[in-house]
């Protein structure tokens, strides 16, 4: 790569120049060189035991060993510039070129590592840096400086931790954040809570100040250059990458939290330095004074603060040396994560291996062996330690460390307690299971179709609905069972749903059941092709056949009831009116009879009494017939199979006297079909019709009872040779109390009764009469008794 070649050339050139300048300064192998740290993890820091930690520490210690130089790490929270100026340190492990502003005499080696920064923004931010109005940073000076240099126009928001800066971006509280690339890499793998869904765009930032060198005052410049040379050799031998690898995932939470405590008070460099000094002093004095039993309040505060900080680290980092078969390092979070103390963990093998849930132990061992064989792996397992009997989930990443020969020497690991997340995950799975059951056991049919409309999934309840089970339906077009004419009728709606993500249509469609019957479905088509996890057309269907049927039945019943009600109203009106007539006559002539009786006019009396008798007789007849009429609907006699000819003969027998008196001739077709009727009622019908025929004949009545074919239904008839009925009265004659002849003796109820009986049997009645043919023909239909299918006589027989 040209970049690394330039880097190499610059480094060699710097080394060469340094060697020339170094004539003035020599390396003193007996001297211990003080190398400064301002607790900048993951580069360099002093831990609570006063031991140096950090990858710059590891790198420079290795370089010093190779160069035969001894280093002593000293805390210099005032920062590299002042520390170099004051002579408090001989070396500074990693610092940008800006240090020469504060310490112009400082010697800088060629940079040996680049602390690179990047801008993180929401993916939908498109217009470049100009669009970024607010920028978030963590509580570190370098990124803040990068932000004010490269994004001077943007308002800077300093968050107390990098997680919060990251979250602010994904929650859209700020337009972007500037973070170290190693932090971005870490967060990409393990996003801070609530940010796993939001994709973010990362843009690398070019900032010369992030090239870090070893700095030294002039008198120790030679040592700095010597160390830099060794680093160069370590690059070539791959030793450097082996040292750096375990640090790649390291998220310097210790340092971050220490800074946070102080920065929260005042975010200035001065305050930071003063606070750092105070804190360092506090820690140091706490350690000393504790030994001397001289605890001051300040020391207690400082120690408590430190403990709180250390206990709040959530991830444990450990390093297992394969050659020594023991843990070479374990961070303080071990107790929180695994439930054992640091001391307990110092054994040959990580003791928590015994506490791994029996079901997970095999897979852990397998994973561990894979890491030992050189694979970077991660695993989730359950653990239950004696101190913490509640089982917890651990997420652990194992990274093998390979030496220059390619052999795995060490396994570095980072582990965290993910119980809360796992429990949420398990709860989510249980929820999914519940939904699946709901879909499977529900009566509604839910189908998922692909973009071509083929069924990808359909709930088993489909079998109850259309008779085909879900396996038969799978892969078929989702519109398969819908009647083609219904698909045709709703084509545009269905097509638009299939075309448009998010579109839906509610349709009522008829589907054909496996048994051939038609069912009515209420369907909701919805295009969810744009929804992750669905990615298709969802059709919810519900069988509403019975509901529709019930609605139709209800409508028909209401119509029937309304018709009956209207009929009843008409009936009540007509009856009250027509029954009043004879009453008026009776009352009217009673008055005359009284007057005539007073006068002794017996002639008049007798004449009026005749009228009276007449009227009361008519009223009696009307009442009797009305009662009969109302009975037709009320009293249902069982129906039976009976010969219609026989019924006609019965009616004739009952009217023998009248027929004889009027010298009438009655002809009955002897071969009429059997009917399925209430025999008494049908005899009543025939009686009425025969009586009418006799009544409206002028001379010798000739009456025929027979049957004719009206297409398919046999039509029975009673035909006379009487006066006939003019067409305009053909329907009126069947109405209650309607009479064509005012002089006739009838009540006007007879034909109403006839019609009522025929209709109760499900038949129809009408009259045929015209001027050409003499007389009237009353025609009606009746239900036939079940007959054998007609025999076909072919020519051969």
């Amino acid at each position, binding site marked *: 790569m040209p970049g690394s070649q330039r880097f190499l050339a610059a480094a060699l050139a710097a080394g060469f120049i340094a060697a020339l300048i170094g004539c003035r300064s020599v390396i003193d192998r007996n001297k211990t060189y003080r190398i400064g740290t301002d607790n900048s993890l993951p580069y360099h820091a002093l831990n609570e035991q006063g031991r140096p930690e950090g990858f710059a520490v590891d790198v420079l210690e290795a370089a010093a060993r190779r160069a035969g130089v001894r280093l002593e790490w000293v805390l210099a929270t005032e920062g590299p510039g002042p520390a170099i100026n004051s002579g408090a340190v001989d070396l500074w492990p990693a610092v940008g070129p800006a240090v020469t502003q504060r310490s112009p005499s400082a010697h800088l080696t060629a940079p040996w590592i680049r602390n690179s920064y990047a801008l993180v923004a929401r993916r939908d931010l498109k217009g470049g840096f100009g669009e970024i109005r607010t920028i978030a940073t963590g509580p570190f000076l370098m990124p803040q400086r990068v932000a004010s240099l490269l994004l001077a126009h943007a308002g800077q928001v300093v968050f107390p931790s990098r997680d919060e800066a990251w979250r602010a971006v994904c929650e859209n509280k700020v337009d972007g954040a500037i973070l170290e690339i190693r932090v971005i890499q870490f967060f990409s793998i393990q996003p801070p809570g609530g940010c796993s869904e939001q994709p973010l765009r990362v843009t690398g930032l070019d900032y010369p100040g992030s090239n870090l060198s070893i700095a030294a005052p002039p008198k120790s410049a030679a040592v700095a250059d010597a160390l830099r040379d060794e680093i160069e050799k370590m690059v070539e031998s791959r030793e450097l990458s082996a040292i750096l690898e375990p640090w790649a995932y390291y998220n310097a939470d210790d340092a971050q939290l220490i800074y946070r405590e102080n920065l929260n008070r005042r975010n200035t460099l001065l305050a930071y330095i003063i606070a750092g000094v105070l804190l360092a002093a506090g820690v140091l004095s706490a350690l000393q004074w504790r030994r001397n039993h001289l605890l001051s309040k300040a020391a207690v505060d400082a120690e408590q603060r430190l403990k709180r900080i250390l206990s709040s680290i959530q991830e444990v980092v450990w390093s297992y040396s394969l050659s020594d078969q023991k843990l070479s390092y374990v961070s303080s979070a071990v107790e929180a994560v695994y439930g054992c103390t640091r001391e307990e963990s110092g054994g040959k093998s990580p003791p928590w291996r015994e506490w791994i849930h029996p079901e997970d132990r095999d897979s852990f061992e397998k994973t561990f062996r894979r890491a030992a064989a050189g694979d970077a792996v991660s695993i989730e397992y359950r653990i239950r330690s004696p101190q913490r009997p509640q089982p917890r989930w651990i997420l652990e990443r194992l990274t093998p460390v390979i030496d220059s020969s390619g052999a795995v020497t060490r396994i570095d690991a980072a582990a965290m307690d993910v119980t809360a997340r796992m429990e949420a995950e398990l709860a989510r799975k249980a929820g999914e299971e519940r939904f699946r059951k709901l879909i499977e056991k529900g009566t509604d049919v839910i189908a998922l179709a692909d973009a071509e409309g083929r069924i990808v999934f359909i709930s088993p309840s489909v079998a109850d609905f259309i008779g085909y089970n879900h396996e038969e339906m799978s892969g078929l077009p989702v519109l398969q069972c819908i009647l083609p004419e219904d698909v045709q009728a709703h084509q545009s709606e269905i097509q638009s749903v299939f075309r448009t993500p998010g579109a839906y249509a509610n349709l009522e469609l008829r589907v054909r059941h496996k048994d051939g019957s038609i069912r009515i479905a209420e369907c909701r088509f919805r295009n969810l092709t744009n929804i992750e996890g669905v990615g298709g057309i969802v059709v919810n269907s519900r069988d509403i056949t019975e509901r529709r049927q019930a609605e139709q039945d209800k409508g028909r019943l209401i119509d029937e009831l309304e018709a009956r009600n209207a009929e009843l109203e008409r009936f009540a009106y007509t009856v009250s009116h027509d029954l009043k007539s004879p009453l008026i006559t009776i009352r009217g002539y009673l008055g005359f009879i009284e007057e005539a009786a007073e006068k002794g006019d017996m002639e008049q009396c007798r004449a009026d009494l005749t009228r009276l008798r007449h009227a009361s007789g008519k009223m009696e007849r009307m009442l009797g017939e009305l009662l009969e009429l109302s009975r037709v609907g009320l009293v249902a006699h069982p129906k039976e199979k009976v010969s219609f000819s026989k019924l006609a003969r019965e009616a004739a027998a009952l009217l023998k006297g009248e027929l004889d008196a009027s010298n009438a001739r009655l002809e009955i077709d002897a071969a009429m079909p059997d009917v399925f009727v209430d025999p008494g009622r049908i005899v009543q019908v025939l009686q009425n019709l025969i009586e009418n025929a006799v009544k409206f004949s002028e001379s010798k009545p000739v009456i025929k009872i027979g049957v004719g074919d009206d297409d398919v239904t046999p039509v029975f008839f009673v035909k006379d040779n009487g006066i006939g009925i003019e067409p305009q009265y053909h329907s009126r004659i069947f109405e209650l109390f*309607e009479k064509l002849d005012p*002089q006739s003796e009838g009540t006007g109820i007879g034909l109403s009764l006839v019609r009522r009986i025929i209709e109760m049997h499900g038949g129809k009645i009408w009259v045929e009469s015209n001027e050409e043919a003499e007389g009237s023909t009353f025609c009606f239909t009746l239900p036939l008794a079940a007959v054998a299918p007609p025999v076909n006589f072919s020519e051969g027989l």
Partner: protein
Amino acid sequence: MATSTVLLVEDDENHAELIRRHLGGHRVRFDLIHVTDGEEAIDYLLRKGNFQGLDASPAPQVILLDLRLPRIDGLEVLRFIKTEETLRLIPVVIISSSAAEKDVRDSYRLNANGYVVKPLDFKEFRSLMKELGIYWLDWNQSASLASPKPGQSPLQ
């Protein structure tokens, strides 16, 4: 004083007799022509059918019309009279046993000149018919009487 003519359209023979005996009491003299259905009534008014050639038969001073009639219903007869140019000035009084609101309204809508309900009570019946006769045959000035030749049919 010329004798008035009354056309009574009534299917019930007994009712017709009651009306004939009571109408106008003893105060007015009139000829009562009784027909039993709507068809006959129209035939009479138009001098058709059985009434053909009865030129001398006078136009009625008032028509007493029952509603429930065989063949042609009372309301149809009323509609016919009131839409026929030569007949519509003749007063038509409905005499019915029905007091139903619908019947009353329908009659007036078809321009009936009066509507009376046949009373059940003998005395009431008698006084109603007496007053009715006096009113329509004596007191009321009808258009047909105002014609220059009393007794001449307006249909000619």
